[in-house]
């Protein structure tokens, strides 16, 4: 059981606790010239987040690729961070998953030790520090660029942030996209976005954005009706995180497919 003198106490900081007992995951220096591409490290792709009138919607496709191979079809890149926030990741899957795991743990650890949750801004800051800590790995090609979104209970509104590989933290007003298909996805959202979007419309817009990204970017996976694999779509409002069910998504994608086929083939 870890016990510290007052001057060495890591407080409510879990990564600092790991460091103090010699388990710091980022402490291992990576030497040599091996790059992520040579290692065949799986890569996660497109994720989006957008605001609606009562919170935020987050969505991400399920595909992970290594070079031109599909390495996983069911990866979950949009995950709940705690009750009122979620994180979506694009980039090298291994370090990203580890980062998310540590991030979730840190939020819960803080909440238990302090007896109250971190503010949403505090959570975004914490994630920014973790992305910055990954910089040495990023320089070898293992870049992790997350999106962080949540419902700010102090301000009663949804908020979202994106990050760059150096830990730069940018709050976006309405929508954000990351990953290889982000150009297509964010264009769809940009065109379809209005400030009075309802939750239902926001979910539809996110699903359409992922459809268009998958249509134009080979690394982004579309809905896979054959295997029953659909993107992860979730919303966060004052009641917390809720995931859209696969059957609901199957219905929405059915409508999107009809609309697209009408557009490209004609009825």
């Amino acid at each position, binding site marked *: *059981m*870890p*016990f510290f003198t007052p001057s060495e106490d890591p407080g409510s900081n879990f990564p600092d606790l790991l460091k103090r007992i010699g388990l710091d995951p980022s402490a291992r220096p990576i030497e040599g010239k091996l790059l992520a591409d040579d290692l065949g490290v799986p890569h996660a792709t497109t994720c989006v987040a957008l605001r609606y009138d009562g919170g935020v919607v987050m969505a991400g496709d399920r595909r992970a690729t290594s070079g031109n191979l599909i390495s996983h079809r069911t990866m979950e890149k949009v995950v709940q961070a705690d009750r009122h926030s979620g994180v979506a990741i694009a980039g090298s899957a291994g370090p990203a998953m580890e980062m998310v795991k540590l991030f979730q743990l840190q939020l819960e650890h803080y909440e238990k030790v302090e*007896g109250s949750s971190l503010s949403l801004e505090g959570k975004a800051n914490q994630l920014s520090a973790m992305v910055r800590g990954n910089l040495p790995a990023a320089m070898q090609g293992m870049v992790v660029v997350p999106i962080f979104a949540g419902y700010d209970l102090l301000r009663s509104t949804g908020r979202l942030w994106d990050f760059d590989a150096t830990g730069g933290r940018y709050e976006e007003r309405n929508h954000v996209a990351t990953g290889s298909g982000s150009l297509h996805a964010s264009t769809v959202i940009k065109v379809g976005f209005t400030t009075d979007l309802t939750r239902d419309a926001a979910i539809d817009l996110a699903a359409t954005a992922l459809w268009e990204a998958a249509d134009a970017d080979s690394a982004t996976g579309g809905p896979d009706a054959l295997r029953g694999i659909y993107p992860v779509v979730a919303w966060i409002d004052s009641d917390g995180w809720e995931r859209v069910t696969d059957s609901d998504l199957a219905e929405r994608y059915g409508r999107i497919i009809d609309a697209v086929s009408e557009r490209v083939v004609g009825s």
Partner: protein
Amino acid sequence: MSMPFYVAPEQMMKDRADYARKGIARGRALVAMRYQDGIAIVAENASETLRKVSEIYDRIAFAGVGKYNEFDQLRVAGIRSADLKGFQYSRDDVDARSLANSYAQMLGNIFTHEMKPMEVEILVAEVGREPDADQMFHILYDGTVVDERDHAALGGDAEAIRTRLTENWSEGLDLAGVVAVGVAALSGDEREIPAGDLEVAELCRGNGRRCFHRLSEADVLALLPPS
């Protein structure tokens, strides 16, 4: 050269134990009881902010009586130990028994080696997936571990409270029933504890991953029989 007085080891241990017991007896008590959905912990605590009962891990709660700063230190150490174990292995590998053993080691060490023993008594409770697997460990200031089956009483006047619990507690109570038993056991016949001085928390099997739930004052008022 002056020689320190010889003190027999028996006497030294007895003095330390008396010291710790006196400190603990000054504080107010708490009880923990099994009920149909898990484990309920009821504490008499005038403070709204300095908690006696708190969450350690998904299925594990901590409760302490005695000196606040000392059991709070133990609480934080327990959260760290549990979170580290869950991080290194898996969430399923974190259990109350090993946590209770670590606490016992630590308290035992402090009792024999430090200037003063910790004036605390703590409880580590774990709600099982089935009622049979519910566990409660009561750990004393000197590291003694007591494995409690149905209910536990910690703090000042614990003997009398335990007797009242044994009389009134029964298998299969619901939350309201078990809280009423706990409050009656804490207060005895002579006095009444106002709802604002009660700290109530439960480890509820149906709460999802994190079973710990702290009841607000309004929740407690709604549970207690109207007086």
